[in-house]
């Protein structure tokens, strides 16, 4: 790599020749304020907060200005400070500044910037435009354009990373707005509810559809038996909301807090992940042995499912018919568990705590029910659970040794790795190997499935049956699209594909704690949180789904066979073809 010499505020540094001034400043340990910039995702120089003096006629945006040999940069002159202040005051002048009631109060990048730049008054009036309508028709995502500062991070995420591209910049001047085409609601377009746009929004313009009130209501109702289940990835991130380092595994503290919140039972969605593996593994084997539709594609990620329904309807028969783990769990709780405990299933209220916003939409799908009762009654995100814990005044960080409740409390390491890209594949192989080969896979660590390469492809050799199982894993919908195009054209001949809609998998889901650009620009959240997941797998006594005693008992006492009749009724589902674009004006 060729290096060039640059000077930043008198500090001489050598930086790679293709750096921007912002990157060079980081090497020189000089802090430049930014707002629209998000490393690798949004590098478009839109907001002008990062202006610096590079000796040109006018101030330049450091986040896009390339360095050159001998460049001399000033980042802190009166002219620069004044320019930044004016820019920020103008942004604030048309921003809906009700910080106290905002979901992003204290986690807002605009708020911190205003504080850092010592803004104590706003000299501009703002526009007289009317309040723009709130879009809260989606089951998962709420858009408040009055808070939007037009940084376009969400547009880049939705368009370039996820290739969903349902939001963009519309109109011009004062009327500029980030929204779906034709002022549609997100609920009317091909939005897949992944929530990745929320995680990159610096302000409160995007958030999840809140369900905390519904959960408090249920907890206060003495007639209800309120059960909570937590997805694998929640424990790997919730600690961040309480000041713990990124990547802390906070399982015990989380369980303790849930008990203090008053849930009647605290269960682990990992248990249902083990159940999913039994069903999906069996489905895979049936399809291989009976010449069924291949590749089989995983169905745990509801963002991926909706993406497939809109963009690849011809591949719907390739999707596993398995419901996602938390839906399966809901169905089992309102049938087997209700029966076992002698509780009227209509009095059971199931709350899922998920790293995911798309699970909210999923739980509302009409197919997701058991004998007319919804499988899951409320879905809250990791962030929403943190809000409840704070609201209740529970000390999350207090040392505790709480465990998930019986009688559904067992889970294996295979269940927990569902939270990271490659995990469902790895868990499925651990069990499929056993089902096909009649013996256990010795080394359960399938490292080819792990890591952050966009698409991972590998083959597993099964010595006894002579099968060479071809597998592929994609995370992030842009990668999924590439992979599906290969499948559609017949270029690829995999047996089994895992897709997770969010980059890095559920650990980086749209419902996880939001980290500001200042953190995201330096730390790969996906990798750090995945470490916590693999740590829990390593620490588990049982690491294969079929070894889970709760699941073994469930089949023996109730379900009979995987993919049997009861399973078909309770644990499997179907999909619908959806239009890519709305058809009515």
């Amino acid at each position, binding site marked *: 790599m060729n290096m060039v010499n640059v000077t930043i505020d008198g500090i001489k540094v050598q930086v790679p020749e293709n750096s921007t001034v912002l990157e060079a400043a980081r090497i020189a340990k000089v802090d430049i304020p930014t707002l629209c910039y998000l490393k690798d995702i949004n590098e478009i120089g839109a907001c002008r907060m990062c202006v610096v003096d590079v000796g040109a006629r006018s101030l330049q945006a450091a986040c896009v200005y390339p360095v050159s040999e001998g460049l001399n940069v000033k980042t802190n002159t009166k002219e620069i400070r004044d320019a930044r202040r004016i820019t920020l005051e103008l942004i604030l002048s048309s921003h809906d500044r009700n910080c106290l009631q905002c979901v992003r109060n204290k986690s807002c990048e605009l708020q911190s910037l205003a504080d850092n730049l010592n803004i104590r008054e706003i000299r501009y009036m703002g526009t007289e435009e009317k309040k723009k309508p709130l879009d809260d028709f989606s089951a998962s995502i709420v858009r408040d354009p009055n808070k939007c500062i037009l940084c376009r991070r969400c547009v880049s995420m939705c*368009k370039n990373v996820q290739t969903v*591209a349902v939001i*963009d910049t519309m109109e011009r001047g004062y009327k500029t707005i980030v929204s779906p085409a034709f002022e549609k609601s997100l609920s009317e*377009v091909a939005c897949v509810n992944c929530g990745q746009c929320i995680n990159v929004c610096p302000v409160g313009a995007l958030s999840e559809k809140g369900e905390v009130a519904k959960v408090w209501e249920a907890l206060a109702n003495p007639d209800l038996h309120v059960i909570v289940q937590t997805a694998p990835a929640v424990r790997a991130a919730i600690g961040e909301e309480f000041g713990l380092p990124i990547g802390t595994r906070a399982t015990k503290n989380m369980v303790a807090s849930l008990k203090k919140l008053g849930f009647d039972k605290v269960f682990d969605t990992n248990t249902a992940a083990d159940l999913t593996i039994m069903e999906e593994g069996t489905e895979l084997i049936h399809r291989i042995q009976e010449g069924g539709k291949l590749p089989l594609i995983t169905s745990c990620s509801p963002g991926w499912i909706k993406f497939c329904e809109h963009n690849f309807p011809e591949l719907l028969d390739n999707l596993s018919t398995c419901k996602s783990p938390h839906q399966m769990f809901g169905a089992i709780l309102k049938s087997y568990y209700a029966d076992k405990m002698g509780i009227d299933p209509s009095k059971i209220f199931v709350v899922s705590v998920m790293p995911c916003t798309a699970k909210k939409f999923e739980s509302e799908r009409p197919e997701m029910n058991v004998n007319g009762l919804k499988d899951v009654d409320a879905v809250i995100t990791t962030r929403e659970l943190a809000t409840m814990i704070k609201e209740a005044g529970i000390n999350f960080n207090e040392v505790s040794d709480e465990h998930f409740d019986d009688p559904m409390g067992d889970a294996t390491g295979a269940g927990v790795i569902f939270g990271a890209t490659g995990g469902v594949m790895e868990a499925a192989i651990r069990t499929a190997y056993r089902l096909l080969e009649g013996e256990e896979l010795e080394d359960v660590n399938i490292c080819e499935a792990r890591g952050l390469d966009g698409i991972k492809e590998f083959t597993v050799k099964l010595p006894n049956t002579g099968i060479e199982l071809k597998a592929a894993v994609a995370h992030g919908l842009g990668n999924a699209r590439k992979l599906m195009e290969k499948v559609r054209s017949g270029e690829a001949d995999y047996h089994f594909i895992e897709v997770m809609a969010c980059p890095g998998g559920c650990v980086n889901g749209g419902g996880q704690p939001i980290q500001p650009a200042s953190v995201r620009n330096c730390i790969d959240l996906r990798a750090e949180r995945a470490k916590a997941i693999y740590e829990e797998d390593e620490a588990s006594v049982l690491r294969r789904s079929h070894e889970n005693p709760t699941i073994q008992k469930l089949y023996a006492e109730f379900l009979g066979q995987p993919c049997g009749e009861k399973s078909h009724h309770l644990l499997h589902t179907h999909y619908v073809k959806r239009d890519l674009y*709305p058809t009515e004006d």
Partner: protein
Amino acid sequence: MSKCGCTCSDAKEKQLQEIIEKYKNTEGALIPVLHEAQEVYGYLPLSVQSKIAEGLNVPLAEVYGVVTFYTQFSLYPKGAYKIQVCLGTACYVKGAALVLNELQKELGIEVGKCTEDGKFSLDACRCIGACGLAPVIMINDDVYGRLKPEDVKGIIQKYKDMTE
């Protein structure tokens, strides 16, 4: 349904497909395609934009973003009488906004829209170079200058009478 009562929509659709086909593999094709499509349809409704999005493999949200960015594109059909209100600096200073408000009231439509009967459409435009006559409006090719809000009613009535 088209106002003329004929079934020309198939013919238009065929033309649209030809336009898309012509530009399909050209870079930066979106704006010329939108132009030609607007010539065919007179405006760019959802159905037309969706076909362009699909045909050029550009997301609909991006197409709509471009359509709403440039004032020459219209989302709504134009009326038999196209009213343009100049909002250039001179006209603005001389009270063009008041004239525009009066027009909206008189016609019962917002800027950019067309009356239900298809007679009048109302748009704001940039300076048309008649600053000496500010504030100015144009109705098709006729220019009206030095307007006061109270002149609006009479002018509109004149066009209403002409069609009856």
